């Protein structure tokens, strides 16, 4: 899967879909924008707990942004805001120029745990999102098989999730995400639950998929600074509900994950971010 095979039927649907949504082309402006967003949870008997305060953040189309910070810094809440799972207490969030909830048809979502449905085979799990969107059975199946092939799991299409290793399950989740052809990918620590070796291979597969086509906008939450720098175009450091740092990575693509940690720019960024984390 080095290039985007435009002759493939599943991919034809993809490009046709893209044409109907001209906003998703790179450089077409902000995919996501947050203006003075504050999120506070009212806590009975206590003062309201402020999770995010006065966040201004604009993420251009096609940019890969990593949100980093310690646990409890509000990074997952920020992602939930963009997904429309949490409403801001003040300020406004817009995704592709609309309310986050109205943009859900363009969102892909990945979680730390694969969240595969155990009563569906690998292929039927990849079809899940397509099914929710009312895609016809034959088309669903075709798209699902295409993306299972792209993650080298075509042979496991009829396996139940419990029959797959963790890494394989997370690759099924990757296929499920790509099958929806989202223009915005929201990822919440997607590789955090994997062991080191598996993580590297799934990260590489993810980067390969992302780099092979017109870049989709990615918002990637992680607590792992190295992962953030290695994968992203831009790293936003959150702490105490505010943006502490916002830095462009500027390492050339395509990147080689095996050697990137010896890159001088990588080390420089790593030190800069780690200092602020403490």
């Amino acid at each position: 899967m080095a290039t985007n095979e435009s002759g493939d039927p599943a991919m034809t649907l993809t490009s046709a879909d893209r044409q109907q949504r001209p906003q998703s082309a790179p450089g077409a402006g902000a995919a996501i924008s947050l203006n003075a967003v504050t999120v506070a949870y009212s806590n009975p008997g206590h003062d309201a707990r402020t999770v995010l305060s006065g966040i201004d953040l604009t993420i251009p189309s096609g940019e890969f942004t990593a949100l980093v910070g310690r646990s409890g810094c509000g990074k997952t809440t920020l992602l939930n805001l963009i997904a429309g799972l949490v409403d801001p207490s003040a300020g406004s969030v817009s995704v592709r120029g609309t309310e986050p909830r109205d943009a859900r048809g363009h969102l892909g979502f990945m979680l730390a745990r694969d969240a595969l449905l155990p009563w569906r085979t690998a292929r039927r799990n990849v079809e899940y999102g397509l099914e929710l969107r009312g895609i016809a059975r034959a088309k669903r199946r075709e798209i699902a098989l295409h993306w299972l092939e792209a993650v080298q799991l075509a042979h496991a299409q009829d396996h139940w999730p419990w029959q797959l290793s963790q890494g394989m399950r997370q690759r099924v989740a990757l296929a499920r995400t790509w099958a929806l052809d989202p223009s915005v990918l929201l990822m919440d620590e997607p590789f955090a639950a994997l062991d080191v070796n598996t993580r590297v291979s799934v990260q590489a597969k993810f980067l390969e998929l992302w780099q092979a086509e017109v870049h989709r906008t990615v918002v990637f939450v992680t607590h792992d600074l190295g992962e953030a720098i290695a994968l992203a175009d831009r790293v936003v450091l959150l702490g105490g509900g505010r943006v502490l740092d916002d830095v462009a990575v500027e390492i050339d693509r395509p990147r080689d994950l095996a050697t990137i940690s010896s890159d001088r720019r990588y080390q420089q960024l790593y030190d800069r971010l780690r200092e602020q984390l403490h």
Partner: protein
Amino acid sequence: MPITEDSRPSLLADADQVPGRSPGSRSRVGLTRETLVVRVLQVSLGLALVGLWQLAADLKWPDPVLAKSPVQSWDYLVGAARSGELLSNTWATMSAVLIAWVLAGLAGVVAGLALGLMPRTERVLNPYLDAANAMPRIALAPLLIVALGIGQSAKVAVASTLVFFIVLSGARAGVRSADAEWLRLSAVLGARKRQLFFKVLLPVATPAIFAALRLGIIYSLLGVVGSELISARDGLGQLIAYDSSVFQMDGVYGILVLLAVIAVILNQLMSLLERRLLLWQPPADR
């Protein structure tokens, strides 16, 4: 089996290890041998128990009135079967068991799922449900028999009060066990309420519903026989009550064993169905 995966992406396709068994390649031989051993041991244990019973009867361990042997009980059952008495009474009992199980089971599934999805209603009703479930239902039998007569309706009603609550709590617990991450993912992917119910909540509740239905069929049998013991026109419970009153203990034992055999068969049938429907579960959870 250890899960190994190569860290070099280009080799991923070859490095995949499938833990557990892949579909179609189950180790049938090992499974069959194990099953065979279990079956042989089960039959031996059954024969040993019957032998012990025969021995106890022969040596007159209990009171002579009570000391009836398996052979005597078997003869009674054969006689009752010949006269047609056994079949008609078994049918009277089993039809009531099945009617109560199906009706109360359906009602229990619907009520349980509804309560699982409506936490506030559930909180309001909870103490009443607990109270109703704690009530000794067999104590309701005389009342229901007066209200509904000594036909099938009263037994079905008694059994239903047992089955309904068992299935209700199973379905409710099942629907609650939905993983928060599935719901979060489904919401972001744009699942509507109806889709969420049929594609996530109902499948996730299925194992718990089946476990409850399996328990429910046994309780249905207990409810029906209990109700028949108190008063009924026909049924195995009524037969036991009659035989006890005339000290025909071989008949009582014979019917009790027959009931036990019926319960085992029903349980096995349910397990079979369950295994069919829940193929997606890892074998340890089945």
